């Protein structure tokens, strides 16, 4: 046999993906023990980044190992419709084509969105094949596939009927850039350098002033009170009086509440119930009016009286100048504070009162915490248990409605009198409404809620819906593959996704969705910085594969990826992976170059060598198996590597 002098990863990798044609990746239930992983579904229009590379390499290692242990290995791939991100891309694309989302119908918009999905969707899955991912591609799912869509609707209706989903006006996090409410978990709090503005409010009918401090002077137009601590001597003379909101001279009461921190600013607070969570709660307690001064896009509306139609940040600058002119501005100080940003769009979040749908977390969270606490689900590394517990014990109800079109539309139908029913279709809704409320109703009388559900409200069902276990809870697949074995995920979606899958699993299967959760590290550059487009420090995974071969890149990623720790990625590690391939190739060439003499007796030295290596191999194999049971994949690879070729510097 002629063996080329150099190993050629490209040719080899193209050739061997015919594993797929041989259907080695495909799984059907049988009598063997199942080993199941569901992929964390990447955004359907996304492209592969280093985080995916790490995450999917780990999954593939686990799946291939299970397959070679004789288990029935099944790795289910798929993509997520990613409501906010995809809708933003489609809106931008339409805008570039001169089409305004507001001017077209929901149906037309969804046509465009599906078209976009067909065109750009699934690229990432093709990229995963290049990495060698041995997914059961015949089982590829998409969160908006009919079966999965229907399952989401069914679950919504079920939870609604159980009284766990309710509609209410609450202070929510408004993303003015995406034009939708988002959940608490989707808000990233960052410290920023702000300014603290000291502003005088004149006492009504007197030549006396009370000074407040605020970081958001533009919101004074929505003020409905000023609040001081009841025992604060400095302000006792203001008790029971009214003060005038600067520039618009609206009289508002001075109220007292122990909530006020006397040390902050001047000790007197402006109260804007419509735009601050704490103010909102004080507003309810003291029965204050609430004036919402913002439009959906973050510009000021008519209730503000001034600066109507201008953006909130432009108004901040303008109003400071005007307050200075009017003599209300006392001073400005530099100030470090925490501001909430949207996880998706990076826009500054606007706390806002809004009518939304919520899912009660109480009982769901309790059960989901229990199965982690009692070890039914194990976290690797275990330190994530504390973070999980803290969140689960302090969780607030989940805002599940989004003011978007790309997603599963909320299956609630409103009647003309304000009553509502939840149903799979308008026809079903009509039946229900006629029975429950008014037998004279017609189809035209019903209107469906315009919103869609949070994307995570579909992906929290993923381990069940990929096997169609919501619609057909007793089907062969779900009974065989569920609960899955291992979940491999980035730690930043522990609440978005991991916790909620556990809730859904307990609610709908009465069983955990997976037995182990492996939290990968975050891939950083070799200087420890997070990889980002702006820094330009994120290598293109496909180029790396071209350069070092998929095997080389896999080894490069895993050599420094202990679970849960950040991974300082250095392309030099891929080079080490490639060199390792070459070393093995040379060993093959050496052996294949030998002539065999069947008459020749085995030399004693060779007999001893064989005996030694057998013991050495078994010792190391025990070590490797032990590492796998502890999910120490880097160590398992390192031990394998060193058994084959120890190139460590011997000094």
């Amino acid at each position, binding site marked *: 046999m002629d063996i080329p002098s150099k190993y050629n990863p490209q040719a080899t990798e193209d050739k061997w993906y015919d594993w797929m044609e041989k259907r080695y990746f495909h799984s059907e239930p049988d009598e063997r023990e199942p080993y199941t992983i569901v992929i964390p579904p990447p955004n359907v229009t996304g492209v592969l980044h280093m985080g995916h590379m790490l995450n999917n390499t780990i999954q593939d290692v686990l799946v291939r190992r299970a397959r070679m242990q004789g288990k029935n290995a099944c790795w289910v791939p798929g993509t997520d419709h990613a409501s906010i991100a995809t809708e933003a891309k489609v809106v931008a694309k339409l805008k570039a084509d001169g089409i305004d989302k507001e001017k077209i119908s929901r149906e037309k918009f969804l046509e465009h969105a599906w078209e976009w999905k067909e065109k750009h969707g699934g690229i990432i899955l093709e990229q995963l094949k290049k990495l060698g991912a041995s997914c059961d591609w015949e089982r590829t799912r998409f969160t908006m596939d009919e079966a999965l869509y229907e399952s989401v609707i069914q679950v919504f209706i079920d939870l609604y009927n159980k009284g766990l989903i309710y509609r209410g006006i609450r202070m929510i996090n408004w993303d003015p850039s995406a034009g939708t409410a988002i959940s608490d978990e989707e808000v990233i709090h960052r410290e920023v350098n702000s300014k603290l503005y000291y502003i005088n409010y004149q006492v009504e009918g007197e030549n006396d002033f009370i000074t407040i401090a605020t970081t958001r002077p533009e919101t004074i137009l929505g003020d409905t009170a000023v609040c001081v601590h009841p025992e604060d001597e400095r302000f006792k003379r203001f008790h029971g009086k009214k003060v005038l909101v600067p520039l618009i001279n609206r009289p508002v009461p001075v109220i007292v509440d122990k909530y006020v921190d006397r040390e902050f600013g001047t000790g007197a607070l402006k109260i804007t119930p419509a735009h601050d969570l704490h103010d909102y709660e004080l507003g309810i307690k003291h029965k204050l009016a609430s004036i919402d001064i913002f439009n959906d896009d973050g510009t000021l509306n008519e209730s503000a009286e001034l600066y109507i139609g201008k953006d909130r940040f432009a108004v901040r600058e303008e109003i400071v100048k005007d307050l200075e002119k009017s003599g209300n501005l006392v001073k400005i100080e530099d100030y470090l504070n925490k501001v909430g940003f949207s996880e998706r769009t990076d826009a500054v979040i606007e706390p806002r009162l809004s009518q939304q749908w919520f899912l009660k977390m109480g009982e769901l969270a309790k059960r989901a915490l229990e199965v982690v606490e009692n070890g039914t689900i194990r976290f690797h590394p275990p330190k994530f248990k504390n973070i999980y517990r803290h969140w689960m014990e302090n969780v607030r109800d989940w805002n599940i409605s989004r003011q978007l079109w790309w997603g599963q539309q909320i299956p609630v139908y409103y009647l003309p009198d304000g009553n509502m029913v939840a149903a799979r279709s308008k026809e079903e809704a009509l039946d229900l409404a006629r029975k429950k409320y008014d037998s004279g109703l017609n189809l035209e009388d019903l209107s469906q809620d315009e919103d869609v559900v949070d994307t995570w409200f579909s992906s929290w069902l993923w381990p069940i819906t990929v096997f169609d276990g919501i619609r057909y809870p007793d089907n062969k697949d779900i009974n065989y593959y569920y609960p899955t074995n291992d979940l491999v995920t980035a730690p930043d979606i522990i609440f978005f996704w991991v916790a909620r899958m556990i809730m859904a699993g307990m609610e709908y299967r009465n069983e955990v969705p997976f037995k182990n959760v492996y939290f990968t590290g975050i891939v950083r550059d070799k200087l420890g910085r997070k990889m980002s487009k702006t820094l330009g420090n994120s290598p293109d995974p496909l180029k790396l594969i071209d350069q070092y071969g998929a095997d080389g890149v896999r080894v490069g990623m895993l050599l420094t990826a202990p679970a849960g720790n950040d991974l300082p990625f250095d392309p030099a590690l891929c080079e080490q992976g490639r060199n390792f391939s070459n070393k093995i190739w040379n060993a093959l060439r050496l052996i294949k170059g030998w002539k065999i003499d069947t008459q020749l007796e085995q030399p004693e*030295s060779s007999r*001893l060598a064989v005996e030694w290596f057998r013991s050495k*191999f078994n010792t190391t194999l025990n070590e490797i198996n032990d590492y796998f049971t502890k999910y120490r994949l880097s160590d398992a690879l390192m031990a394998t590597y060193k058994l084959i070729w120890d190139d460590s510097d011997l000094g």
Partner: protein
Amino acid sequence: MILIWDDFCSWYLEMIKPPYKHPVDKTTYAKTVAFFEDLMKILHPFMPFLTEEIWHLLRDREEGDDIIIARLPETGPADEKIVNAFDKAEQVIIGIRKIRKEKNIPNKETITLLLKKGKHDESMFYPVLEKMGNIDKIEEVTEKPDNVISFIVGAQEYYIPLSESVNVEDEIAKLQEELKYTEGFLNSVMKKLSNERFVNNAPEAVVAKEKKKQADAEARIKVLKEQIGNLKG
């Protein structure tokens, strides 16, 4: 100095490699291919493509005999005594090679290895030593002979007789350098062992290992001092 460097590509293959242009016996060849296959199996989950390619180049296979669906090797018995004895043999080989390099003794030229009577765990590997070190015979002696160059593995002395005479001054300088190194090494081990936090918190096996290092280094210092004393006469 304690080096562990035993692997398939560098050590095993060299141990069984037939002389240039000579054939290999079929037993060794079959075992070697089997080892290679097992190694590729445990590597497959990490490097799927390369291992599948090697799998098919190693020998002819039936349709469907692919590594991706092969069974991982089961762990078999591991003889710790063999592994430890080999570690020692390996040190001796490294010692011989170092001296060949220093004294410019070509690898082709056979040498004789003398060793001081004592506990030699590595004795089972003498045939391997002979091959890897190109040694014509291995003999035990009770005293250090004249006109030899010596080296130490663990607490044992090994000698290689030289055809030409040894420069005593050079030899003493070399031994003293090694003594200095070993004393420094002992010092660092002692530091570790005097750290209560380490001794109380580290796994027992790790502490035992450090204690073994201490004993080895102490024995070696003793031998080195004796040798220097002998040379100074």
